[in-house]
């Protein structure tokens, strides 16, 4: 009798299957790009501006240029709610529709997709998130993590701390606290921070926040008050960040010593602290604001024509611009893949080559209206991250500013760790395929 349920499942399945057939196959002059988004759930506060930025840049390219090299990008969002189960569904959906690149937008989703990428021949673009070890292109030919990894971020945090204190030698005896989401995303920076703590003699304190307690960090901040760390690094996301900013203010923790990872740099995250949040810092990989030709083009071709989902005043905010940066990487990779293969309509395998030889120079940034928006990034066969530069952004009470220079991560510290961990990962996975894909020369 129980099998009737299966019959029901089968019938519904057949419905789905029939539907999958009826969706238009990739037309001759378009490429399909699936992007995971979360406009619902506890992380939607950060997910919505990112999704808007991603979407608007692609729309702008389609509207202004008619696509990339004459090929329109069919862009589709798949709602995940930052839930790994739904992300896996979205991956399967993207695969069945022949996406040219998979954009997971969550560390959990990236971890679940990494082992499948090289089998399904879908490149993963996890822009500054995901598995840090996947920056090793030799072992992960299908995973790309530009412009840097969480480990680079952690090293930048230590560098920033040293710069403010007056030198690496001043780190001795200091205390660095890490507030982090108690999930793979939050735990990522720990190995690097532990290594650096040993090397430079500072103390590392961990403050894990369970996903369920993101908005209830009271007990955590009691321990922070007790421990009195000199600096706090916040590896948080979604509802966790505004709470951390508010708690820091409530607990009289000096706000300029609280530094967020780039995902803790949302305008709404900082705004939650009110005027007292002035001085809150966050690592950043893109500039905020609308003073860039690329953002102005988006305003002209997308926002003003009513084709954007974002409210007008939110265009140009930090996380929105981050979404724009991610879409730019995709578009540049398509362009590069077209150049490499001579094809107009590229596939996932072409995209992998396009990403692997991606070289975004200063001149190119200027061409696409992104001068000063981000730093040049070069991805190579072995280095799938580029370990590019970031800066420490500061909240001035109303917007994010860039008070300092672009900083380079401690690549010498990070790189060996990445290679060791990549080897460890592939060894454990068992039967991990040796890289068979030939290297591309940087274009």
């Amino acid at each position, binding site marked *: *009798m*129980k*099998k*009737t*349920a*299966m019959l*029901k*499942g*089968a019938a*519904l*399945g*057949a*419905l*789905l*299957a*029939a*539907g*999958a057939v*009826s*969706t238009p196959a990739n037309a001759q002059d378009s490429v399909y790009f699936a992007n995971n*988004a979360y*406009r*619902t759930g506890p992380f939607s506060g950060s997910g919505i501006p990112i999704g808007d930025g991603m979407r608007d840049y692609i729309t702008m390219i389609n509207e202004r240029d008619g696509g990339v090299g004459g090929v329109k990008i069919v862009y589709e*969002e*798949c*709602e995940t*709610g930052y839930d*790994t*189960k739904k992300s*896996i*569904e979205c991956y*399967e*959906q993207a*695969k*069945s529709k022949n996406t040219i690149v998979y954009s997971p937008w969550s*560390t*959990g*989703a990236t*971890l*679940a997709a990494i*082992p*499948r990428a*090289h089998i399904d021949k879908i490149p993963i673009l996890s822009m500054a998130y995901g*598995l840090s*070890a996947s920056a090793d292109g030799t072992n992960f030919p299908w995973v790309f993590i530009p412009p840097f990894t969480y480990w680079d971020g952690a090293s930048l945090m230590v560098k920033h701390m040293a710069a403010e204190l007056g030198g690496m030698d001043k780190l001795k005896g200091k205390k660095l606290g890490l507030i982090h989401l*108690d*999930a*793979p995303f939050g*735990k*990522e920076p*720990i190995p690097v921070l532990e290594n650096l703590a040993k090397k430079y003699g500072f103390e590392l304190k961990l403050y*894990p926040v*369970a*996903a*369920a307690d993101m908005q209830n960090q009271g007990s955590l901040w009691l321990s922070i008050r007790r421990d009195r760390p000199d600096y706090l690094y916040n590896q948080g996301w979604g509802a966790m960040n505004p709470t951390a900013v508010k708690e820091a203010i409530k607990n009289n923790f000096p706000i300029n010593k609280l530094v967020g990872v780039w995902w803790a740099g949302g305008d709404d995250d900082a705004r939650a602290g009110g005027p007292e949040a002035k001085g809150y810092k966050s690592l950043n990989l893109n500039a905020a604001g609308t003073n860039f030709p690329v953002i102005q083009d988006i305003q002209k071709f997308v926002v003003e024509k009513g084709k954007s989902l974002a409210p007008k005043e939110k265009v140009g905010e930090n996380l929105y611009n981050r979404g724009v940066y991610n879409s730019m990487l995709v578009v540049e990779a398509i362009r590069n893949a077209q150049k490499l293969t001579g094809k107009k309509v590229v596939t996932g395998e072409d995209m992998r080559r396009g990403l692997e030889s991606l070289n975004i120079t200063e001149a190119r940034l200027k061409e696409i209206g992104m001068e000063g928006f981000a730093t040049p990034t070069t991805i190579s066969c072995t280095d799938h991250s580029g370990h590019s530069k970031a800066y420490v952004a500061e909240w001035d009470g109303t917007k994010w500013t860039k008070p300092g220079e672009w900083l380079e991560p401690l690549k010498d510290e990070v790189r060996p760790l990445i290679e060791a961990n990549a080897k460890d*990962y592939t060894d*454990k*996975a*068992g*039967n991990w395929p040796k890289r068979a894909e030939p290297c591309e020369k940087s274009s």
Partner: protein
Amino acid sequence: MFYREAGQFKSTYSADMAVFPIWQDRVGIAVILLVAFIAIPLFASDFVIASVMIPFLVFSLAAIGLNILTGYTGLISLGTAAFMGVGAYACYKMTTFFPGVNIIVLILLSGLFSAAIGVLFGLPSLRIKGFYLAVATLAAQFFLQWAFVRVPWLFNYNASGAIEVPQRTLFGIAITGASASPETRYYVCLCLVVVLTWFASNLVHGKLGRSWMAVRDMDIAAELMGIKLLNAKLLAFAVSSFYAGVAGAMMIFLWYGGGEAADVFNIRLSFNILFMVIIGGLGSLIGSFFGAAFIASLPTILKFGLPAIGIPLAGATAEHVTFMLVGALIITFLIVEPHGLARLWQIGKQKLRTWPFPY
């Protein structure tokens, strides 16, 4: 007319006691098995197999587990997800310790670990009942989930705290790991679910099942009749957690394929499985399947099915609609048919039996 049992005579006691005494039921089962084993792998797309069928099978097994405890024995548990987690982590640790042992054996063995933990957290059930017991199992949920995150030994001191599923083969075909095709994973799930359902069916129709139901209906009366409450209740916890543990191991190894495991086994999952049992039908194995199909597959079908047949529905809207719809349907079901989908199925069969001349 469709479902008439006239002329089907039973000449032995065993024929009379059979789980499917009616010929039409046996044919139905055969047809469904054929569909499940042959038609679906042949005709369904990879997406349907990987995102609809495998989750459906995994949740069915978990729902059977909870149904044994809640539906048949009358003990409420809110810790199902945690017991699933025990299975998943136990399976992961065993694959590291015994890389040579076949993964299917390990998946089944991991249920034993879950059963042991289940018995441990089931001990309070001897003294407390109802809501109080639900709260006690809630403690299991919180404690075990905390342990999954904070005990690094469980995830082999992995830097990101994630479980990595290694590749394992059976007869040279990869059944776990990335290169395992959805069809293979589906077959493994299906075989496990069919065998374990058959086993559960025998359990609940036998002496043990009778004693569970006696405990559910009135435990003092059951005790007076000579049923040992200690044994019956703890066995219910053990069997229930065994099923949950196997489902959890299947979930990570055959469906997710690794990744963020600690947060998967959260209280929402426990509630979802409880809803499956309630909506599907308490104390019914087929209800577990109905409930799993309803709660686990409906959101997926709404989200991907509607746009596919031409009804444009944005992803975020689909999520909201799912929440509203599932919520509304739960309330409707509880009011209109508290015995769940299984009861509706029964009524439907009854109607077919007397069609076209209802009494």
